[in-house]
């Protein structure tokens, strides 16, 4: 590496310097992982229990048990179903007894979005509507199938029938249709959809080449 910088030092350390840093040639070879916990050098002092501490310990245990049984101890639905599988009928019955206590929230002093009960009305409306629609589709599919078997080339009629039945449904309950749209809770216009195909449509003929 001649000609680079001043030369001389190459950046490696001499054996003497390595020894000063504690690196000797015969380093012990590590064959096993280090222990999980460092060894305890001194035994910790034992704690004395005073009457005050006893009171606090008992109270705390009681408090934690109370919290666990309270409706404010929330377990997610997945976990709940998993744990239910391992329980016998007696435990399930006890759990059901506990569930009777309803949480009390002062929703007036909380943001409205946290109040789930205020939304119940809307969800209750939507569900039966959806079910009704589902059964209609199934029924209609059956009818259509039968028709298809009978007459092969009456496609136009089918289309007409289908659109008719949809219109009927909407006429049945226009509010429900609105509700469904509003349910998304955003201001996105569902009826408007632009797939981008129309973009630059007008200019198409211009792309062919320059017009002189």
């Amino acid at each position: 590496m001649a000609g680079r910088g001043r030369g001389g030092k190459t950046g490696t350390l001499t054996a003497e310097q390595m020894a000063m840093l504690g690196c000797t040639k015969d380093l012990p070879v590590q064959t096993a992982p280090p222990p999980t916990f460092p060894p305890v050098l001194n035994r910790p002092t034992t704690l004395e229990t005073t009457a005050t501490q006893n009171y606090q310990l008992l109270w705390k245990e009681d408090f934690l048990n109370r919290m666990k049984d309270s409706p404010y101890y929330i377990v997610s639905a997945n976990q709940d179903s998993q744990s239910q599988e391992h329980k016998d009928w007696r435990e399930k019955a006890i759990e059901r007894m506990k569930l009777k206590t309803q949480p009390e929230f002062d929703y007036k002093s909380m943001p409205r979005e946290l109040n789930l009960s205020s939304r119940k009305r809307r969800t209750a409306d939507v569900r039966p509507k959806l079910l009704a629609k589902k059964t209609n589709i199934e029924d209609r599919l059956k009818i259509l199938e039968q028709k298809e078997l009978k007459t092969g080339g009456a496609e136009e009629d089918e289309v007409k029938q289908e659109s008719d039945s949809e219109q009927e449904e909407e006429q049945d309950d226009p509010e429900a249709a609105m509700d469904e749209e509003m349910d998304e809770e955003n201001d996105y216009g569902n009826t408007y959809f632009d797939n981008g195909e129309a973009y630059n449509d007008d200019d198409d003929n211009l792309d062919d080449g320059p017009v002189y």
Partner: protein
Amino acid sequence: MSADYSHLCSAILEQCFGKVVQLVADCLFSATTRSLSQIASSTKLSRKEVALALAVLVKYRLVDFSASQQNPFLAEYALRREDVLCLLRYPRYVHLVQAKYGNVGASIAEELINSGSDTATGILVKCLTEGENKSESAESYRNSFLQMITDHYIIKKPELLSSDETDEVIPKFETNECDYYRHPNIDLQLLAKIRKGEATVSEAKDGHMVWTLNYDRFHQDFRDSIMIDAIERKLGENAAECFRFILKIMYNTTDPWQRKLSNQVTFVEIKQTIEKKSNNLDLMKYLDQYISLITDDSLGFLRRVGDMGGGLFVVDMEKSFESLAFACVESVITERFGSKAARIFRVIRCKKYIEQEDLQKEAMIPSKEAKSLAYNLFQEQFIHVKIIKKPGGGSNGPAKAFYLFQVREKDTVRMLLDVSYKSLYNTIERSNFEKNEHKGLIEKSQRLDSIVETMKERGESDEYIAEIVETFTPPECEILKKVKNRIKTLSKAELTLDDTIFLLQMYQHHCTTLPTGIRKFK
């Protein structure tokens, strides 16, 4: 806020409110504010679950909400990180109230803890119907409640502003500092009617006044008792009583959470108060001597600042918590590294900056031992090294530098606080592990206990009961006993650790300018 504190908060919330609340709080801990949909998307929980968890956290005053700056109809939630630790201090709060106001006060505090916050009538009805001291009259409950408000243990929550719109998206509150401790109008006749079922709580006139526990007032008492206990251990009971009166006088003119020094207190004031309120003749006779004893002591709790009115004094909060916190640090060092290491630590603190060679001479410890102890302390970050480089040195060899040991007090305390958070987290986790590991055994013993109890109530024969008890085999008994002992020791460690954490937090409040959890009128 360290990662250790975040883990601790997470474990505490899981213990009290379950997994869902824990996930929501974890999400809030890592951000300043978050909206409901943001939380739902980052925790992957359903909107319903997140809303319920947030409602629980708001109820227990662990989450604040405000309207977003960009969109006034969007609520943003923030976790009160410092208040999560208060959940662990509930037993101490209840014990303090029990000592001051008896069982009636304790059951009021308990109901306030259980419900987070409630109206006075609501709390008293719950105490009278569900509490353990049903025999107590409604009047005694009312008096205790009002007394607790007067003593600032209970505080009124900011009042809800009623607007014309009945269904406001984000409620607004009115804060009025003069109004926090105004007594509510508790109607005893209505209370009686509610108990009989002839009326409902909503008919009460105090429906707009919602009360809750004032954590800062409890912390003020804990802080005072730390100081008074220290004086009692060092200078005796009379000096401790004298200091208690000084603190009482101090609070007449000083904000309890003033950081550094109190306002001035005169000797005459102290003397008059003690003569009025104390029966301790010794204290009255030698008051000046007791005061000079406290002033001259190395703890530095009290400082004489003038001669007006027989002597002007200030309570030096900064100095007192510095001495107390470092007494704690030293005892930690003694327990971990031995008394010689503690001596080295004291020498370094006393000299401010000291070189390795001088250190072993000053501490009078053989050089090799002193070196290893100092390096151990350095490794664990109890002491720090300041490097002063001498300019020049030339091209040959490294520049000459001095390596001086020093104690950066704030850093040392912060490190110890983090270690305490970590060990408290470990204690809680270990305790949970023990409970889970022996869940079957613990549940079996509980079931057996309840069976035996019902059998005793029914008056079954002792032989039959003994037969039932024997279903719990001796080895099982032994394991259960061991597990219970272990859990009890861990719970005791939790209490003791919280004492240390509280002391170090007080150091941070009084000796630094760091923001602490103590806010006036939370």
